[in-house]
Every structure is written in structure tokens, then in C-alpha cells.
């Protein structure tokens, strides 16, 4: 065993990145990339069903138009290509991973482009693209086949390009003497809308869904702090402590077995110094952090917008039901993800200071004043179920302060000094 520099600055991780490390897990699980994809396979199945229905609808129009096609061969091959793309993409997404490789996505795009081109060739001479395109309009919906497996931007760009290509084709296809009126233009507009919109709506829906899953993961992971002891060290602290202990053991061992010569080189000496500092920090750390601190620092959502003021670590005294209520209330206050409310929403949770007790209670309990002040949250805009959550913490009263909500809660807890 030899002394080595610890792989990374453990202190930096704990102080700065503990929360990020945990929420990275949440992100990984919520993202489409990881195998346990949490519902995106189900969404993808829905998208596949939609695409197949859309293709059947388009195919029936294709059959209706069969007699009118100047080049029925081209239209038929357009549908042939599109069906191959649909079947291939469905099989690939069921059999393959949760993320389609770029070459696979390129194949899908090439297939869609081929189907659109062939369909355009087939009906070009009819000069009525709005009504007669079938495979080309269904091809836009086919982008939904990969909606859970590829990024939003590339899908939106693809759908946009497809829409522009159709619009340009329609413009070029128009005979110079054609009148500019609704009977001719409206079906063209509708065709473009039906081509582009499914992909756009699908992308936005999947994004919202992903966000929902990630929020819920974040919340559930943080929820585990509710059952933590009064003071806790947090998720990564013990791992860090173990690593520091091991690093110290290696260093000391290498000195004891004369592998490291005395006096130490400046480099080894500074390693010892940093180990001592970090170890010291870790040993005192566990004493002053409560579940609420860990909840706020580990959650991406809460960490961004909650400031915690709890000098006397009073949060640790709350019982699990009160903790659950407080956490749920804080969550609901900040998790409203409307865009306008976004950046300015923040709350401060202050616990204490304890008021000097005027009357002695005979039930071994002590009231803790909790104040939640908010900015950017209007009274009539908060979720009504927040009041039920606050009720579980204690008696509360709410006031409006400079147009923003402020809640004062009296949480009654077991007196730790009176057992």
C-alpha cells in the first residue's frame, strides 16, 4: 500500500457538488438515455400507434387517388419506402436501446426525404399538392417514431425543414395563372400543418413528460430525508469519510513501513495537511446539519430557490409528519414551473429564534416559530393543497408582504431539554 493523492478533492465535492451528484443520478434516470427509462417506452409505444394510424389514414387516400396518379409507380414506391422506415424504426426502437444511434436517425431521415421526394414526383403534374400528397404528409408524423430517442432540437429542425420543403414545392408547383384564393391555398396550409404539427406537439409533450419524471424523482429522493435523525451527515459524507480514512491509513502505513522517507517531501507534507483539514471538516460536519439542510442541498429544485436560515438546527426537532408537511409546502411553493414565475420565485425558510417562553407548558413540548417568506409568489397563485401541508406542520397564519406570500407557523415539538 502506498500513499497516493486522493482521486479528487473530496472537500470540493461535498461543499459544492453533493447536491449536483445526487441530482445527476436523478437526471440520469429521468433522461431517455438510461435503460430504466421510466415511462418513455410507454410514450414511444403511443407514438408508434399514432404513426401507424396516421399511415393507414394516408394509405387509404393513396388508394382513393390511385386512378388519378400520373405516375402511380412513384407514389407506390414512396409508400413502400415510408412503410420500410416505419417498420424499421419501430423494430429498432423496441429491440435497441433507449437512444437511437445517429446513423440510425440519419437512415430514418434519409427514408423520410426519399418518401417525400417520390410522392412529390408522383403528383407534381396534378398541380394540386395540398390535396394529393399522401406519403409526404404522413412522413412528418413518422418523425414521432424516434421522439423519445432523439433530442428535441434535431426533431424540431427536421420537422421545420420538411415543412419548408413542402411550402417551397407548393409554391413552385403553382401554375402562374392560378388564383390566390382559399379554395386552393387552404388545403395546402392544412397539409403543411398536418405534416409539421404532430412532430412539434410530440416533442413538447415528451419534454414535459421527462420533466415531470425528473421532478418526481428529485422529490422522492429528497423525501428520504424526512426519516433522517435529528442531525445527519448527508448522503455522500460517509463515503467521503471512508475515503479520507483510507487515504490517511495508506499515508501512515507507507511511513510506518519506510516506503515514504522521513522527513517528507513538500508534496507529501501538503497531502497530509489537506487530508487533516478535510478529515477535520468531515468530523465536525455531521453535528450541525439537519434533514432540511440536506433536503435543500441535495435537491436541484429546492437548492435553486430555497434559502434556509436555521441557526440553532431546530428543523431537526420536527417529527416526520411535520417534516413531510414542511417539505411538501416548500416543494409546492417553488415547483410551479410556469415560465413567467420562473426565475424570481424563491423562498426563505427561517426556523427560530425561539421566543423566551412566558408560560411553562406541562406537556414537555416547545413551540418553534417557522417563517416562510417568498418573493414572486402571489397569494392567489399558490396551490390550495399547500394549506393542508402547512396544517400538518402546525398552526399557521399567512400574510401578504409587498405583494408576496409570507407564512408564519407555530410548530409544536417535543422539548429536547425536557425528557
Amino acid at each position, binding site marked *: 500500500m502506498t500513499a497516493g493523492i486522493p482521486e479528487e478533492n473530496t472537500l470540493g465535492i461535498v461543499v459544492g457538488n453533493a447536491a449536483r451528484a445526487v441530482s445527476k443520478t436523478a437526471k440520469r434516470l429521468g433522461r431517455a438515455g438510461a435503460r430504466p427509462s421510466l415511462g418513455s417506452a410507454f410514450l414511444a409505444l403511443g407514438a408508434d400507434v399514432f404513426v401507424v394510424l396516421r399511415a393507414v389514414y394516408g394509405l387509404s387516400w393513396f388508394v382513393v387517388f390511385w386512378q388519378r396518379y400520373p405516375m402511380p409507380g412513384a407514389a407506390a414506391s414512396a409508400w413502400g419506402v415510408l412503410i420500410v422506415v416505419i417498420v424499421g424504426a419501430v423494430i429498432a426502437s423496441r429491440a435497441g436501446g433507449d437512444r437511437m444511434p445517429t446513423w440510425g436517425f440519419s437512415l430514418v431521415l434519409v427514408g423520410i426525404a426519399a418518401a417525400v421526394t417520390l410522392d412529390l414526383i408522383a403528383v407534381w403534374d396534378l398541380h394540386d399538392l395540398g390535396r394529393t400528397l399522401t406519403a409526404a404528409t404522413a412522413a412528418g408524423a413518422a418523425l414521432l417514431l424516434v421522439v423519445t430517442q432523439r433530442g428535441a432540437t434535431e426533431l424540431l429542425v427536421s420537422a421545420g425543414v420538411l415543412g419548408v420543403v413542402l411550402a417551397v414545392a407548393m409554391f413552385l408547383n403553382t401554375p402562374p395563372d392560378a388564383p390566390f384564393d382559399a379554395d386552393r391555398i387552404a388545403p395546402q396550409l392544412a397539409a403543411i400543418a398536418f405534416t409539421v404539427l404532430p412532430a412539434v406537439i410530440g416533442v413538447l409533450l415528451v419534454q414535459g413528460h421527462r420533466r415531470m419524471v425528473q421532478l418526481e424523482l428529485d422529490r422522492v429522493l429528497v423525501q428520504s430525508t424526512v426519516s433522517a435523525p435529528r442531525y445527519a451527515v448527508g448522503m455522500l459524507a460517509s463515503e467521503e*469519510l471512508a475515503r479520507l480514512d483510507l487515504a490517511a491509513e495508506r499515508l501512515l502505513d507507507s511511513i510506518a513501513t519506510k516506503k515514504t522517507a522521513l522527513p517528507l517531501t513538500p508534496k507529501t507534507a501538503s497531502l497530509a495537511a489537506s487530508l487533516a483539514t478535510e478529515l477535520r471538516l468531515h468530523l465536525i460536519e455531521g453535528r450541525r446539519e439537519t434533514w432540511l439542510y440536506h433536503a435543500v442541498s441535495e435537491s436541484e429544485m429546492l437548492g435553486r430557490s430555497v434559502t434556509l436560515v436555521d441557526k440553532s438546527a431546530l428543523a431537526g426537532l420536527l417529527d416526520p409528519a411535520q417534516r413531510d408537511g414542511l417539505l411538501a409546502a416548500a416543494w409546492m411553493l417553488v415547483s410551479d414551473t410556469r415560465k413567467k414565475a420562473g426565475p424570481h420565485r424563491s423562498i426563505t425558510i427561517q426556523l427560530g429564534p425561539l421566543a423566551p417562553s412566558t408560560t411553562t407548558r406541562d406537556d414537555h413540548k416547545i413551540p418553534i416559530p417557522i417563517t416562510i417568506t417568498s418573493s414572486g409568489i402571489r397569494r392567489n397563485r399558490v396551490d390550495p393543497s399547500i394549506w393542508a401541508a402547512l396544517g400538518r406542520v402546525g398552526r399557521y397564519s399567512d400574510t401578504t408582504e409587498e405583494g408576496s406570500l409570507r407564512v408564519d407557523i407555530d410548530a409544536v415539538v417535543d422539548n429536547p431539554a425536557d425528557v
Partner: protein
Amino acid sequence: MDLIAKERDRVLQRAARVYGLSFTVASLLCYLLPGAVDGTAAIGIGALLYVVLAGAQFMLGISRNPVWVLLTLAAGIGILAIATEAGTASLGEGGMTALQLLMSGSLAAVAIVLTGTAWRIVGLGAAFVVLTLASFWLTSASQAPLRTGGLLVLGWFLAGGIGVWVSAGVPQISKRIASIGRAHRAERQASELEAQRRQSARLLHDTVLATLTLLAHSGVGVTPEALREQAAEDARLLRQLRLGSTPTPQASGSYQLESGGDPEPVLGRTLESVKQRFGRMGLTVSWHGTGQVLLPSEVLDAFLLALAECLENVRRHSGVTEAHVTITEDDSTVRAMVTDAGVGFAIADIDEAKLGFAESVVARLRDVGGNARLFSAPGSGTTVVLEVPR
């Protein structure tokens, strides 16, 4: 309280908003094309109703109030009535395309949010029936009811399908997330226990810290042999800790340096080992006062840690090689006064947040109900008074 259900509703509401607004825009563009509807008044009022429709659909993305669903439908049917002059006028294909986009696309967006609860599904049925009847009546002059109805069913079926499908996936997701949450809670508890075990080995960490601090100064002032001996001992203790033996608090007073220590937590005996340890590092500790003090083990731990920390500070910063420790006791308190005749320092210069004193000495003593006071001035030595309750 089901927070994921709220999130699901938000997702659906936003989807409904995007869905509705995009079809509204498409329909409005068709509506405004020349020849779609007859008469400037119909175009003007119709466009106004489109604005109302868009507003209602925008609100649909924010609020779950059914008012916005009703307003959306009312504005939509109003547009139908205006465009067809209350069912009397026959529209061309352009006008019918606009209305079809409106009925089967834009208005169908409300079907996305009309899922989830039984009442909402009833509302969905009612909305669909009302719109179907209204559209049959209003467009009968322009288009065969079969075609109108077929496209209506298709559009509303698709939109409702989105809502149902997303809602159907949520329980499964919520179950999986809950099981991840349970695993995470177990992990948190295990990690907490492990951290407690390691942190409870405080005396061990204290000697390790002292040795590391020595090493950080390249072991200056200590013979290499003594340092090696110390390092071997500390490494052995750390290995024991790593391999899972939990040093119990009762025994923690004895495992620091001497093997087979005194079974009783007698202060005098343990103080002797502190003295020896600092002796090896080149600081002579002179002992005064009470030799035998019995203390509860956690108080003894804290007291010794604080004392050792003070002596370490003397060794490192005072510039002298001798320190005096005077132990006194009364009925309620045991007091140690650590004095040196070294360089001293200005109290105001030490940073509160600086780890040395505030954390390792004061915090440890306060944990057990004790206190520490510091007296010093540049050039006139330093005195630290440590107090713990008996």
C-alpha cells in the same frame, strides 16, 4: 396528496395549449384567405372570436378551471356560426378547411385536459356531443355530415388519446419512482450509520489528525523513529476501523496510544498518555493539580480532545517547548488551564471560522455542556481555560 398527478395535469395542460394554439393559428390563416368566408363583417367578427379562442386556450395551459374549456368551445362554435351565417350559407372548400381545422384540431385540444377524473370524462362526452350537433347543423349546407363527423371523431379521438395515454403511464412511473425512493432511503440510512460509526471513533481520529498535522509540517521536531511508531499505530487503528470493528465509546479512552490501558476512565492516567505523546513530539507538558478525576466517558473524550488540541497549538505556534496544565475541580466542574510563555497573539486576529480553535476545541466542549475561554496578547503567552461539567 399526489404531487405527480399535479405534474401530470400540468404536462397535459401545456400539451393542450400548444396543440390548440397551433391548430388555431393554422385555421385562422385559412379563414383569412380571400374567398374563405363571405363578407367583411364575418371576417372581422370571426377574427375577433379567434383571438378570444386563442386567449382561452392560452389559459387552458395555466388553469384547470373548466371556464376556459367552456370559453374555448363557445368561441369555436361562435366562429362556426359566423362563418356559415348560422347554417344558412354554403362554404367553399377553403372555408370548410378552416372550419375543419378548427373543429377537429383546435377545439379537440380540450379533450387532452378532459381526462383523468370521471367528471372530466363526462364533460368530454358532453363537449363532443354538443360540438358534433352544432357542426352538423351549421355545416349541413356546405358538406356532408358523414365527412364532418368522421373528421371530428378522428380529431377528438386522437386528442383524447393523448390525455388517456399519458395518464395511463403515470401510475407505473410513480410506482417505479417510489421504489427508487425506498432504495434511496435505505441507502441514506446505511450511509448515516456508517458515518456515525466513523465519527464516533473520535479519539482515534484525534490522534490521526495530530499525526497528520505533524506530517504536514514534515515531522519537524520529532525523531523519525517516534513518528514511524506513531504512524504505524494510527494506521493499525484506521485499519481496524475500516474492517468494521466499532470502537465502543466506553473503551475509547484507552485505545489511543497505550495497549491494555486502564479499564477505568481515570483522568490522571489518560493525561499521562497525552503528556507522553507530546513529549515525543518535543513539547514538555508539566502537570499540576488534581491527578485523579472521574468523568463520564463522553465528557472525558471531549475534554481530552480539547486539551490535546490546545497543546498541539502550543507546540506549533507558541515557539516554546514547555506548557503547563493545571487541573482543578469543584462540585460541578472540572477545569483545565493550559498555559505557555510563548509568543502569544492578538485575540482579534483569529478568525472565528478558522478551524483550529472554534471547531475542535469550543465545539467539542459545548457538545458536552462545557466551555472554553482564551486569553492572550502578543508577546505575553497564551492561556486557555477549558471547563467541563462533572
